[in-house]
Every structure is written in structure tokens, then in C-alpha cells.
């Protein structure tokens, strides 16, 4: 019943070879399984910045975060695309020979949704880290604070562009399928894309500055909306008045003061849709473009300054 070989493990079993003769002397080793630092090749800061931009872009839509954070951006995106889908459906069924709404005009109509989207997603990218102190983890890495600020802005820019460009591309595809004139549509779509880029740059800048200034999320959202929409409202009011009074130049100058109105003004000149007091003359139009870009650049500089201050604090 019992095997004598099993009764005492200290006695060597004569049937099996002696295991200690198999390994040559000096061949035994104990491996160090403790903490070992990484000594391999490391990527340069541009690669770090690139991955930060991509992560930020995904976070803005809730990808890579909890399920609940996906609801809001995707709901807003769906609301934004719905009219485009409806227009597409109508075109397919009724067979219109031109788009009922211009590419660039679309963003002007959905500006409230756009504003809410930018206002609610900017805190995700800017306020979260500042509020909970995790910004220290980012800034203690080889990436300079300036590059971090620009990367975050680029993520928000990317998210806003997704929001703005998806209906344009959808309408473009529908118009091509509906066999509308290719050159016309491409030209219109191209202008719209250019305008969208300008708008996205300044909106991302404004929202980013406000979100990094106020770290409480709810407050940042309301403040951004207040700045964007009240600013737009004031400009529209002044435009309306200046048109009634017969001093359109006042309106043109006032239009410089809000990203939405800059967009509308340029749109009306370049795509032929009506707007009150559009910028007339090359000088004015150049000024508009310059202000657009300068607004984005100024906000970006403010962001860089803010993060540099945080980094050295």
C-alpha cells in the first residue's frame, strides 16, 4: 500500500538520476524580481505630445472614460447631426437640385449646440487635472508646460472640428450621391471647412482659457456660455441697430468682437448668404481673418502662461 520511496523524502530514490549533476557549477542564478527601472529607448517629447493629443481627443468624447461620460458629448453630436440626416433623407427622396442649407450656414444655425459642446467638454480637458492636482503628474515629465497647454488645446480643437465637420462631410456625401455639381459643392464645402477651422480654433481657445481659470466644472460651463452667447447677443444687437440707423461700419467693427459673428460675417461674404453688416472690402475681410487667428493665438498664449505659472508654483 505504501511505497517505501515515498516515506522519507530525504532519502534519494536510486531509480531516478541525481538532479544536482545536471546543472554545471556556477550555472545557478537567482533572478532579481524586484523593481527594475526602464532602461530601454524612450520616445521624444513630440511623441509624448502626440499621444497626449490623441488621449485628450478621445476623452473629450468620453472614450477611455466611464460610460456615463460618453452620454453628453454623443447626445450633443447626435442632435447636431440630426438636421443633416433629415436633409439628406429629404434630398434622396425628393431629389432637390441644391442643398436647402449651405455648408457654412449649418454651423451658424447650430451654434447653441456647438457652444454647449465646447463649454461642457473644455472642463474635461482643462479643469479636471487642475482641480484634483494631477497636473503635477503631467508637468513632472519631459514634456514642457507650454507643450502640454498646446496639446490640450489641440485636443479640444480636434473635438470641436469633429463636431463641426461631420455635418459638412455628411452633406457633401449626400450632395455627391444626389449628383449635384461636383465643383460647386467641393468649393462650397472647402470654404465651409476653412471657416470651421477658424471658428473651432477660437472657440477652443476661449473655452480652454475659461476652463483653466475656473476649476469648478459647472461654473466654467456657465461662464463659457455666458461669454460666447452674451457676447454674440451684444454684437447682434449692435449690428441690428447700426443697420437701422444706417451706419453699417459700426456694425462691421462690432462684429469683430465675437467668434460667432466673425464667422457669420466671413460666411456671408464668401458664400453669398445674407448677414447684417457683412465685412465689405478686402481690408475688412483680412482684418476679420487676422482677428480670428489672433483670438485663437491670444487664448493659446494665455493658456501657455497659465500652465507655466502652475508648473513653477
Amino acid at each position: 500500500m505504501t511505497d517505501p520511496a515515498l516515506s522519507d523524502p530525504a532519502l534519494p530514490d536510486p531509480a531516478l538520476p541525481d538532479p544536482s549533476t545536471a546543472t554545471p557549477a556556477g550555472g545557478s542564478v537567482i533572478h532579481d524580481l524586484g523593481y527594475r527601472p526602464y532602461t530601454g529607448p524612450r520616445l521624444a517629447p513630440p511623441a509624448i505630445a502626440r499621444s497626449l493629443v490623441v488621449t485628450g481627443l478621445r476623452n473629450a468624447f468620453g472614450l477611455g472614460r466611464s460610460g456615463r461620460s460618453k452620454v453628453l458629448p454623443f447626445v450633443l453630436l447626435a442632435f447636431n447631426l440630426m438636421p443633416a440626416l433629415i436633409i439628406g433623407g429629404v434630398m434622396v427622396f425628393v431629389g432637390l437640385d441644391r442643398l436647402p442649407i449651405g455648408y457654412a450656414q449649418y454651423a451658424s444655425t447650430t451654434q447653441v449646440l456647438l457652444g454647449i459642446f465646447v463649454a461642457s467638454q473644455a472642463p474635461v480637458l482643462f479643469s479636471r487635472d487642475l482641480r484634483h492636482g494631477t497636473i503635477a503628474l503631467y508637468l513632472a515629465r519631459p514634456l514642457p508646460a507650454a507643450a502640454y497647454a498646446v496639446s490640450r488645446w489641440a485636443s479640444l480643437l480636434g473635438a470641436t472640428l469633429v463636431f463641426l465637420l461631420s455635418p459638412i462631410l455628411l452633406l457633401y456625401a449626400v450632395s455627391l450621391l444626389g449628383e449635384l455639381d461636383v465643383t460647386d459643392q467641393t468649393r462650397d464645402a472647402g470654404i465651409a471647412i476653412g471657416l470651421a477651422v477658424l471658428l473651432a480654433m477660437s472657440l477652443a481657445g476661449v473655452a480652454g482659457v475659461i476652463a483653466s481659470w475656473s476649476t469648478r466644472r459647472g461654473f466654467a460651463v456657465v461662464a463659457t456660455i455666458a461669454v460666447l452667447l452674451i457676447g454674440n447677443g451684444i454684437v447682434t444687437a449692435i449690428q441690428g441697430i447700426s443697420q437701422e440707423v444706417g451706419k453699417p461700419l459700426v456694425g462691421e467693427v462690432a462684429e469683430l468682437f465675437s467668434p460667432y459673428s466673425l464667422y457669420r460675417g466671413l460666411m456671408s461674404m464668401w458664400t453669398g448668404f445674407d448677414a447684417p453688416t457683412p465685412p465689405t472690402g478686402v481690408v475688412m475681410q483680412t482684418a476679420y481673418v487676422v482677428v480670428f487667428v489672433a483670438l485663437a493665438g491670444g487664448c493659446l498664449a494665455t493658456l501657455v502662461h497659465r500652465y507655466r505659472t502652475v508648473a513653477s508654483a
Partner: protein
Amino acid sequence: MNATIARLSTQALIGRRRGLVLVLIPAVLLVLAVVVRLLTDDPAGYDAVTELAFTLALPLVALLAATAVLGPEVDDGSIVYLLSKPISRHRIAVSKFVVAWAATLLLGVLPLFVAGVVLDGSDLRRALAWGVGAAVAGTAYTALFLGLAAFTRHAVVVGLLFALLWEGVLSSVLDGIRWVSIGAWGREVAARISPSITGEDLGMGYAVVAAVLVTVGAVWFAGDRLRSFTLRGDE
């Protein structure tokens, strides 16, 4: 209504940054009113400024005020110090509502009235009408946003979607929305007081009753939600 809670809420409201934006909105509005007055006497100017104030500034001020008195405390759990006292939850909700309401009246309604006077000093009735309409709408807005703040962490965005999308964009497309739009109720009340304002064809009675119902219901709801607050560990 509890004075200590009101005092604590006021202190939370006037905290540096929030207080700044809260005051900035009516300030900008008044500056705009002055500028427009200097530019023109055209009634289009009056309409533009009051439109901006009523549809945008008023809900934003109410939203800021309501989410300031309730949001942060619930978020970081310090409301437990208010709740672990022998005070009914509804009294706490009412006290907070009163503070937010006072802020809305002072920084949302009063500037609207003053802007009306600045823009057209001769038609005081019209300015008063706007003021009363804004008071009705502002009260309902504050209560609604307070209820939202007690209900969800995303109260701000939901409130914005309501005030801007539902009452703004959609109501210009769908007529029926005016029956369930706080802004429309306020406008109706204003229209009944001054003939220079176009109403929404709802009837003063309906507008006032609806606003009162929303106010009472939302504040009661906020109190009810406070009863469900739970202690959470450090998570």
C-alpha cells in the same frame, strides 16, 4: 427658512470667482443698454437689449445662483453638516432657494428693469412690465435649477440645454413649446401689463399659475432629494 443656512449659502455664493461673473453679467448688460441708447432711439434697439437680457442673461444668472448654493456642497459631501441637524429638509431647501432667488432678483431682474428705463425713460410702464415678467420667470427658473442641482451632478448642462435649446431654438420652431416654457410665461405676464410687448397668447392666469406650480414643486422636490443624501466614505 433658516437664517444660518441662508448666511452660509450667501457666503458660498459670493465666493470670489463666481461672485465676479455673477455681477459681471448684469454690469455688461447695463453698459450695453447705455451704449445702445447713445447710438440710437430706434425701438429695435430696445427690443434687442431686452431680448438678450430676458432670454439669455436672466436664465444664466438664475443657473449660476442655483447651482452655487447647492451644487458644490452636495458634490464634496459637506452638506452633511447641514443635514445632521434637527431641521426639516424642506426648510433647508427653502432657505437655499431664498438666497438664490434674492441673487436672481438683484442681479437678473433689477438690471432688466433699469436697462428698460435707460433705453426709454418715457415708457416706464414697459420697463416695469419687463421687470415683473422677469421676476415671475426668474423665480421659476431659480426653483427649477435648484431642483436640477439637487437631482444630478450635470445640473448646469441640463439647465443650459433647457434654457437655450428648448426655450430658445426649439420654441422658435415649434409653437406649442410656449405652454411649457418659463420664458414664455414671463413674457406673457409682461405683455399683460404693457401693451407695447407682444405676448404669447397664453393668458395671464395660466402663466402665473404655471410659474407658481413649477416654483413650489421644484423647491419641494429639492427638499425631498436632500432626504436621500447618503454618507459616503473617502472614495
